[in-house]
């Protein structure tokens, strides 16, 4: 608790140019090194001196970049906390910062409590003695807030899932411990019952995690790009979705030179909608920059709405744009169905863009647009829990706790009956300790209560 490595987003919430994640503790540099790919080959993070910066990418477990970042290395005691510290300067704003933080947290780094960096700074002699009171204030405030928050997050509908999970773990612990401490009253443990409970725990965890991920989208939103050749109607669509005229809508191709972003709400999901400049070969330098930015936006987005013009047929330019899209994250909207000339038929679409959802409609006539919204919602939520299943908001910390439980439960179900009961108890104890962090309950203590409630113990 005093020396573990902690991390948190240290810039204020909200959209900004960059966001900074601070990682502090004895393992900070080594941990971040493991998920960082320097731009310049051969540079090694852990060999950097204090106050050096390095450019590169935070990468996921498959070595794919999450965001381009600058790392700032500070070596103890020359940092705010007087511990080894790494600051990760994300370039992608809040969303990317959250993803980077989550990546850091997968390394066994704990999410810092509010004020914890300052607390460490004080304990390590970095702050003036007069600041002790302020630090104490923060600690008191956060324990109160954490309590309120935990209560709030786990009341009503949500809490029953967590309680069910806790209840099963308590039951497993009670079965094991009763058999160990009261062998004459209880006898051998029922391994089948234990196995059944554990697999229920695993299923429940999976549901909660999926629901949490789904809920995450409702909170932190998603990026959706609108793309298509010039004058296909991208700006009109953006205007319709956002409800007001922002982009200039004209008949002249290439009117939209820069990226236009708008925050819209699609079926309750906050969506950062990006209207890309038309992607086409051009000699115009300003437009060339816009095109490059459009391609970048496409690669970062969760979803692309690809507009085609029913009157012009499928052109080489359309095919070229399609090349830059990820088919699994693409919806095709065939615009201008209100016009008479129709050059695109469905068979053509099937052949050229197999497996992609297609809507034929008209932005001007508001045809097919609610259908489009439905598909956008469905695709953003795909693989993230059954719709209408759980309404669970999980913080990163809570997700991390459930994830850790999940990782521990799997192997345990496989070792049932192969390890002795005392070793099994060690494994289960680890799970219930992690699970206990979720609500601050001592599940072990409750398991002991359960023994006396459920088993008739008594010499």
């Amino acid at each position: 608790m005093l020396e573990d490595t902690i991390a948190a987003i240290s810039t204020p919430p909200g959209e900004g140019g960059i966001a900074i994640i601070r990682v502090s503790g004895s393992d900070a540099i080594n941990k971040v090194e493991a998920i960082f790919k320097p731009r310049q080959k051969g540079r090694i993070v852990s060999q950097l001196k204090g106050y050096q910066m390095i450019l590169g990418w935070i990468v996921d477990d498959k070595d794919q970049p999450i965001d381009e970042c600058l790392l700032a290395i500070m070596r103890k005691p020359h940092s705010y906390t007087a511990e080894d510290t790494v600051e990760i300067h994300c370039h992608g704003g809040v969303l990317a910062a959250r993803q980077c933080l989550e990546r850091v947290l997968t390394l066994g780094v704990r999410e810092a409590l509010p004020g914890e960096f300052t607390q460490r700074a004080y304990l390590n002699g970095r702050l003036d003695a007069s600041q002790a009171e302020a630090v104490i204030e923060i600690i008191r405030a956060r324990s109160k807030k954490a309590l309120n928050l935990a209560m709030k997050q786990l009341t009503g509908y949500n809490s029953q899932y967590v309680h069910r999970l806790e209840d099963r773990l308590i039951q497993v612990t009670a079965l094991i411990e009763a058999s160990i401490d009261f062998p004459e009253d209880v006898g051998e443990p029922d391994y089948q019952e234990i196995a059944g409970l554990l697999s229920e725990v695993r299923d429940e965890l999976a549901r909660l995690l999926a629901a949490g991920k789904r809920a995450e989208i409702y909170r932190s939103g998603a990026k959706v790009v609108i793309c298509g050749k010039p004058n296909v109607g991208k700006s009109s669509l953006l205007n319709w979705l956002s409800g007001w005229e922002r982009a200039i809508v004209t008949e002249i191709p290439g009117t939209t030179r820069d990226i236009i972003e708008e925050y819209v709400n699609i079926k309750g999901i906050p969506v950062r909608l990006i209207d890309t400049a038309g992607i086409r070969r051009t000699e115009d330098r300003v437009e060339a920059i816009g095109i490059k930015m459009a391609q970048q936006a496409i690669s970062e987005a969760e979803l692309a709405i690809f507009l085609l013009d029913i009157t012009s047929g499928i052109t080489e330019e359309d095919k070229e744009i399609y090349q830059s899209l990820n088919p699994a994250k693409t919806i095709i909207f065939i615009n201008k169905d209100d016009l008479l000339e129709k050059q695109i038929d469905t068979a053509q679409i099937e052949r050229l863009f197999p497996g992609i959802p297609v809507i034929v409609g008209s932005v001007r006539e508001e045809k097919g647009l609610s259908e489009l919204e439905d598909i956008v919602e469905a695709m953003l939520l795909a693989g993230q829990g059954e719709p209408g299943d759980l309404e669970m908001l999980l913080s990163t910390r809570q997700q991390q706790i459930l994830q850790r439980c999940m990782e521990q439960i799997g192997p345990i179900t496989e070792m049932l009956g192969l390890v002795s009961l005392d070793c099994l108890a060690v494994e289960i104890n680890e799970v219930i300790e992690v699970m206990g962090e979720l609500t601050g309950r001592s599940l072990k203590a409750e398991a002991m209560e359960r023994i006396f409630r459920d088993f008739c113990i008594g010499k």
Partner: protein
Amino acid sequence: MIYDAGEYDIVVIGAGHAGCEAALAAARMGCRTLLTTLSIEHIALMPCNPSVGGPAKAQVVREIDALGGEMAINTDKASIQMRMINTGKGPAVQALRAQADKHQYHLAMVDTLLRQPNLNLLMAEVEKIEADQNGVSAVITKTGARFLCKAVVVTSGTYLKGRIIIGDVIYDGGPNNQVPAMKLSQSLMDLGLTLGRFKTGTPPRINRRSVDFSKMIEQPGDERPLRFSYISPLKPREQISCWLTHSTPLTHQIVMDNIHRAPMFTGVIKGRGPRYCPSFEDKVVRFAHKSSHQLFIEPEGRYTDEMYVQGLNTSLPEDVQLQVLRSIPGLENVHMMRTGYAIEYDYVIPSQLQLTLETQAIPGLFTAGQINGTSGYEEAAGQGLIAGINAALKVQGRDPLILKRSEAYLGVLIDDLVNKENDEPYRLLTSRAEYRLLLRQDNADLRLTAIGREIGLVDDTRWEAFNRKLERLSAAKQQLKETTFTPGDAEMASFLAQHNSAPLKDRISLWELLRRPEIEIEQLAACGWLDEAPADILEQLEIQCKYEGYIKKQQEQVKRFEKLEERRIPEDIDYHQVQGLSNEALQKLQAIRPRSIGQASRISGVNPADINVLLINLEKARRKS
């Protein structure tokens, strides 16, 4: 009239399981020691079940032995049956249990006490402890003898204002109809201690000759010779069986028909009883859906016909007890020899103690055993040993002995008593130990013998035996690690085939081979691959090898735990000056005065925010100085 009766270093009040250990430890460490008892005929009395050991308790008995205490040796002398329980559940929770001949247990302990140099035994009731701000100075008996002393260990069990309850029959009394100690409670309160009141109980005893064993299931002991003490002779002995029977729907009907006469339900009993040891009437009421409860009929000794009915603790009226007994298969014509009863008694709320078992209020005053709100002979003996050791260390001006939770069940026991709120008599359970895999009954000697030696309780004989064991362990371990086999070895190939174990792929040591679940060390020894070694050496190595991964895991946890234990809190800290503590934490910390941040974090009512606040304040204080 009060007269000067002499001077001792240490006076121990009460010669039960705690008192005997305390007095023997103090005397063996060279302190002039007086042990007082209400009745010499009842020294080391087992007023409840006739057995020693079981889960967590067996580990404690072995720990007492490793430190140079007496309980293990005495149990080995008096045992009439031994069984290893929890054998299929892993080495950490395996536990030895002995049925003891109660009378023999008493006689053997008296014999040991009488032979002990530096120790005097006195039949007397201590009514008063004298103390001033420097600490205890004397004890005064009912008959006026004043003994000057430097330390006092109170081990008065359930005798303080003891009250016996059998139905509506209620009278002052200690266990087994002994006289209670009616005055000492007041003296402890005058010294500033707060007392609470607990309740416990015991079942009726029956005459073996009136029992029909044909209706019961025999529970024999293990055939192989077993022992508690690492230095007792390991020899086969004649064993006496226990018997298993059960209650019937009729039994439960009798209880329910008379429940209005049960003191537990009429409100006569106010003291809180232990949940792990409920009365039979309590079980019938709370588990109404169960039509039957197990009952074990256990011999009280080799030369008595008295038998104990385990599972039938009760304070029901005597006539109901008799009806209940006779509704049980095999007991239709039973003759009841002693009536079951509940007993209420005063105890010292243990948050007033230090981890040495010395009271915070009075220097030199120690308490141990049931007076501290525990239950069980083993828990009492363990505390007695620690209190006796610390009293002697204090008198000798030496550093106290505090066993860590990661070191011994005795450490867990005392740490829990001081830090956790208990609203029932405390019993040790293996699940109370965080590092259960390390605190095994097989390695108590490896954990604690060196500590016992340093204190001065481990004599040369035990010390030499222990060192021989260490040498043999290390030699045999080396042999296991250095003896290797190649896939081409024919003898090994046939051995593996014989034990359904996969053929070798690479060169492998015996140690690595032993990790395979299907391979046992006895099999390796039988092939002549190991030098001859006693069974306990082989067992120890097998556990160390097979559980290496889990043991390492727990050792890592212990390292993290000990970091917080090592962060000491200054003894003179004034918690009223600590800013930002919650009210409850302030009260608790001020009362318990933890030694370390680790201990503070275990106190009921002190939450993590309080610990963080405390850390900040300690840092502030450090900078000021």
